[in-house]
């Protein structure tokens, strides 16, 4: 145990005596996470603001007399630059306006039937002709889609209500019942929806990336440089050496992963609230402990697996090629969790390493994780971690693996 601690200290010293390592493991992740989500948030805000502030270019053909007054009354004419066209507008001019919508220079063309108001007034019985209003817009253009939505909300709906009032007099007669919506919601779950979708995937992926970046060099790199042999020549037992390496690397990976995770939570939380104005997620002390326990066990499992694979390689290049497929598996398992949002797997599924952990992290963010699910998650990861640790220990004992003998 004393010798294992000596190896742990050496692994820590390897990082903390090197400024470049400190920056790459603990400073860059914070800058990157806040940079990415800060940029995403500010871009999203800026795009939304730009769309909202854009003055739509709208053409209205055969507008009934009330439309101009309605545009003034609703303030629509202040949000859009409206050009009124009559029925004499040529085909080529109409085509030019439509081409403008396709090109993004025009946003909306509204065409009322030629005798819109007359057709409306002539309606007496069911089956009589109903006048039409056609909206031409470009669904691939944000400005155009926004112009269509705004026209519908400010003009079309109000004009419909106006004509209904003209036809029926008292509109209340048309109301046969009203609908009240009362929200019954777990606010924590509602606020955690965005995080619960992204966080498990991100944490799982980042933990593996941290373990990979540290362990490949610490095992295959040392083997390649011949420095692992110098440790094997010391009186330290191979088992102490293996455990010392694993614990040291697990501590480093955990620290790096915690930096990543905390940065992710804060930067994603602020990103989510910046785009939907919702409240951030708050965790209880127990939930923080659960999250920490899941992450610590998961990171140790990743460290043990990456070390067990890396030790089989002759150099870091080979080790990276061995570990990369595992990284893809981890990413896929994380994505499965993200895409299966809302489905609750059976408790036994939490025993599956990585998948179970991702599901458990998701459960914590939306506050639905049960005690048995938490225990199964920890148990599943621990069993795998123990198997990988045994593999590393056996590899340290093997002269074929250590010396290609």
């Amino acid at each position, binding site marked *: 145990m004393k010798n294992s601690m000596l190896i742990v200290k*050496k692994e820590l010293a*390897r990082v903390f005596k090197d400024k470049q390592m400190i920056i790459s493991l603990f400073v860059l992740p914070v800058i990157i996470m806040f940079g990415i989500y800060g940029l995403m948030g500010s871009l999203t805000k800026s795009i939304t603001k730009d769309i909202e502030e854009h003055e739509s270019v709208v053409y209205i053909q055969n507008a009934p007399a009330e439309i101009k007054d309605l545009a003034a009354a609703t303030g629509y004419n202040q949000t859009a630059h409206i050009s009124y066209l009559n029925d004499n507008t040529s085909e080529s001019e109409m085509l030019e306006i439509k081409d403008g919508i396709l090109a993004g220079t025009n946003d909306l063309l509204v065409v009322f039937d030629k005798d819109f108001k007359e057709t409306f007034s002539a309606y007496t019985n069911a089956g009589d002709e109903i006048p039409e209003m056609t909206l031409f817009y470009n669904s691939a253009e944000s400005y155009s889609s926004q112009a269509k939505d705004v026209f519908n909300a400010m003009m079309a709906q109000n004009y419909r209500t106006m004509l209904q009032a003209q036809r029926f007099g008292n509109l209340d007669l048309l109301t046969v019942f009203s609908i009240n919506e009362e929200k019954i919601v777990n606010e924590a779950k509602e606020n955690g929806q965005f995080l619960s979708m992204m966080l498990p995937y991100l944490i799982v992926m980042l933990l593996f990336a941290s373990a990979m970046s540290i362990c490949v060099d610490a095992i295959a790199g*040392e083997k390649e*440089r*011949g420095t692992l042999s*110098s440790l094997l020549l*010391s*009186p*330290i037992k191979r088992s102490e050496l293996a455990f010392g390496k694993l614990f040291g690397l697990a501590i480093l990976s955990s620290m790096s992963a915690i930096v990543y995770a905390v940065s992710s939570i804060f930067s994603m939380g602020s990103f989510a609230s910046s785009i939907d104005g919702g409240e951030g997620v708050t965790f209880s002390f127990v939930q923080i402990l659960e999250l920490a326990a899941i992450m610590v066990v998961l990171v140790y499992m990743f460290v043990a697996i990456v070390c067990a694979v890396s030790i089989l390689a002759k150099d870091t290049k080979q080790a990276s090629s061995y570990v990369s497929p595992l990284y893809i598996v981890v990413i896929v398992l994380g994505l499965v969790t993200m895409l299966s949002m809302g489905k609750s797997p059976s408790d036994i599924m939490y025993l599956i390493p990585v998948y179970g952990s991702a599901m458990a992290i998701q459960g914590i963010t939306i506050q639905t994780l049960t005690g048995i699910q938490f225990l199964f998650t920890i148990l599943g990861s621990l069993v795998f971690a123990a198997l990988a640790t045994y593999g590393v220990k056996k590899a340290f004992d093997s002269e074929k693996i250590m*010396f290609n003998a």
Partner: protein
Amino acid sequence: MIQVNNLTKVYKLSKRKMQQMKTTENIKKAANDISFEAKDGQIYGLLGPNGAGKTTTLRCIATLLTPSAGTVTVCGHDTVKEGEAVRQELCFLTNEIKLDPFFTPKYLFEFFGHAHGMSDEEIEARRKELFGYFGISEFENKKMQELSTGMKQKAAIAVSLVHNPQVIIFDEPTSGLDVVTARSVTDMLKKLKEEGKTIIISTHIMSEAEKLCDCIGVIIDGKKVIEGTLQEIIDKTQAEDLEDAFFKLYSEHHKEEEPFNPKSGFGGRK
């Protein structure tokens, strides 16, 4: 003292290696029934062409490899059954085993001192002695990767000797060193010999073996082909000097292969 009794080390060959070595056998005897004894206060020289089995033999003594047959004892400890005890008694320095380039000689000296169970006071006293001898104090706080080849070799020797081992095994101890550094290494070996240490070196430099070794064993194709003092070997082979004796021994075992080339080694092997 080191006792090597009928040491045999067999490697299994992959099909690819069999093709590379142009052999139909799927095993290679890197060490074949080798026996010798290195006594306290003596430098034993292990000579042989590249791929002869010197490094395999040294690795078996250093507990890095397990013999397929035979036994090796170091200071009375069996290398297989008492690996940790053997490693406590010896140091093994080879070009293939290096010190971590990201650490300083001082840190590594202290680390390996602690790994050998030494106290801080013991390490400090030993550090002053060895760093002073090799002139390492000037660069003791520089990272290994910033040091020249000679500085690295000096640091490596000092670190390997931190625990004052009884048995010292140096594989090509002066390889790649300038004359001054090489001299300090050979002087150190002589000093250690005077202190009663058991020393084994493997070398290609015949003049070095002639000057340093009390006893020389020559290994060719995994077998020990001759053993004795410098004079005994010259007498037995009726050669002019050690290099001449070496050439004759090699030629006897490789009559059909190309002769010794001083630049590329025996048989042109790398």
